[in-house]
């Protein structure tokens, strides 16, 4: 069903909150996962069962503190679980689809409320913004003119998939006139339950198209730059030169889930004599060791599933563009299998399946 949530007094946030409240009040879900405003203006996801608390909901903070897919995984992984509605951005839904295929989340009893995404700021930038102007509706400025040049997160500037895929409810903010109404697509049965009546359909318009075109162009420029850097013999070592092997990129990656990860074991706590051997052989050996091995291993394990959310880049204390590398390499590794992360839950992960007749060139007889 296509319908429009009416906006009163130009208060689009209140309209969105009202819509979310109706999901709880009409019993469509038992609880909602949605960002709530915490004290001090920060915004963090919460699992909300009391509709009254949705007055503090901020479904669209222009910040992505954490990729919500991991959180949905924790809420859905095994029964008994509640019927949950999760308010997610496009990259979070893509990560969720990957996690379902990795058996780390379930779509059972889950209602995905997907929002058109106009991009997000880093935690640090957003904290400064709300400190400077606590009352300003920063998210609204983004949607009022999504095509404007802004210091968004690196991943967002190059995100060519800002529209939610695989969502049960799609809130089409890019087509919305926030003073008047917000177009929403949802299943008929649910629409009737919420007492909504079908309205005019909001076609995907020029704004979304232009936004995708702009971001695709940025992405291609970024890929070209990264590939140029990696084509020089020193490029790889240069790129990861400042890595302190803190593993923050791995911890914050929504897809990198292995609890038995080799890099969480003492495998790289080498014997003192081993470091000495390396130092003697090469004249010097980098410390901490094994940083390139860490990144190459992760690229190799995860790049086919990389959804481009960029949490790794945000998490890096050395400001290494980890996410750019993952996306650039991922584009190529995904292409081998024509795999698109987050596209479909039916599409098997490339490493879990095979065809008898394929990749003959990899093992030349």
């Amino acid at each position, binding site marked *: 069903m296509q319908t429009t949530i009416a906006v009163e007094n130009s208060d689009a946030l209140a309209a969105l909150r009202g819509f979310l409240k109706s999901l709880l009040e009409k019993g469509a879900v038992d609880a909602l996962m949605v960002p709530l405003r915490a004290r001090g203006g920060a915004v963090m996801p919460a699992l909300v069962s009391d509709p009254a608390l949705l007055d503090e909901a901020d479904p669209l903070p222009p910040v992505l503190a954490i990729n919500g897919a991991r959180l949905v995984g924790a809420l859905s992984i095994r029964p008994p679980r509640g019927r949950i509605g999760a308010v997610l951005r496009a990259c979070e839904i893509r990560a969720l689809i990957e996690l379902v295929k990795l058996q780390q989340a379930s779509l059972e009893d889950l209602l995905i409320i997907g929002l058109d995404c106009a991009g997000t700021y880093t935690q640090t930038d957003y904290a400064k913004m709300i400190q400077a102007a606590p009352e300003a509706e920063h998210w609204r400025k983004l949607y009022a003119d999504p095509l404007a040049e802004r210091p968004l997160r690196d991943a967002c500037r190059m995100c060519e998939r800002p529209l939610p895929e695989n969502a049960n409810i799609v809130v089409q903010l890019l087509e919305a006139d926030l003073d008047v109404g917000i177009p929403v697509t949802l299943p008929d049965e649910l629409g009737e339950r919420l007492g909504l009546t079908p309205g005019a359909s909001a076609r995907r318009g020029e704004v979304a198209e232009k936004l995708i075109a702009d971001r695709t162009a940025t992405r291609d420029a970024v890929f070209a730059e990264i590939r140029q850097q*990696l*084509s020089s013999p020193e490029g790889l070592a240069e790129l990861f030169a400042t890595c302190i092997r803190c593993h923050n990129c791995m911890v914050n990656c929504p897809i990198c889930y292995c609890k038995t990860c080799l890099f969480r074991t003492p495998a790289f706590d080498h014997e003192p004599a081993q470091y000495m051997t390396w130092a003697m*052989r090469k004249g010097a050996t980098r410390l901490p060791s094994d940083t390139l091995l860490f990144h190459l291993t992760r690229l190799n394990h995860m790049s086919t599933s990389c959804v481009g959310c960029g949490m790794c880049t945000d998490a890096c204390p050395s400001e290494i563009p980890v996410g750019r590398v993952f996306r650039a390499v991922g584009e190529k590794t995904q292409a081998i299998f024509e795999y698109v992360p987050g596209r479909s839950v039916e599409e098997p992960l490339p490493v879990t399946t*095979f065809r008898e007749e394929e*990749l003959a060139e*990899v*093992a030349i007889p």
Partner: protein
Amino acid sequence: MSNSDFEPRIVAFLCNWCTYTGADLAGTSRIQYPPNVRIIRLMCSGAVDPVYVLKALLDGADGVLIGGCHPGDCHYQTGNYKARRRVAILKETLRQMGLEEDRLWLRWISASEGQRFADTITEMTAALKAMGPNPMRREWAV
């Protein structure tokens, strides 16, 4: 070191059922091949975690060979098909990161192909000699 006296080091991960047995056959048949290979036996080519390959290459191995059963012959039915996908991803990753993907070889060698094993090592040793030493062996910033 000039290329003429450069002796490449090959780390070979061989599956227990086919390629390792093929290597054994090469030995018992007294087939001559270059002594440049260090063999590690695994139960299946599908058990080769890419991290083993990356560790060997970053630590300075000049080449890595993964040997498994021919398609359709895997002792565990599908391990070699999965290995092939992993190697495809690994080679693409190496290529994208500006590393030499040609140092990694995947070959299907059955238990009866002792000659083929010897030929593969001969061929790989020659190819690696032509490539020269793995620069990672002397790279301190790895």
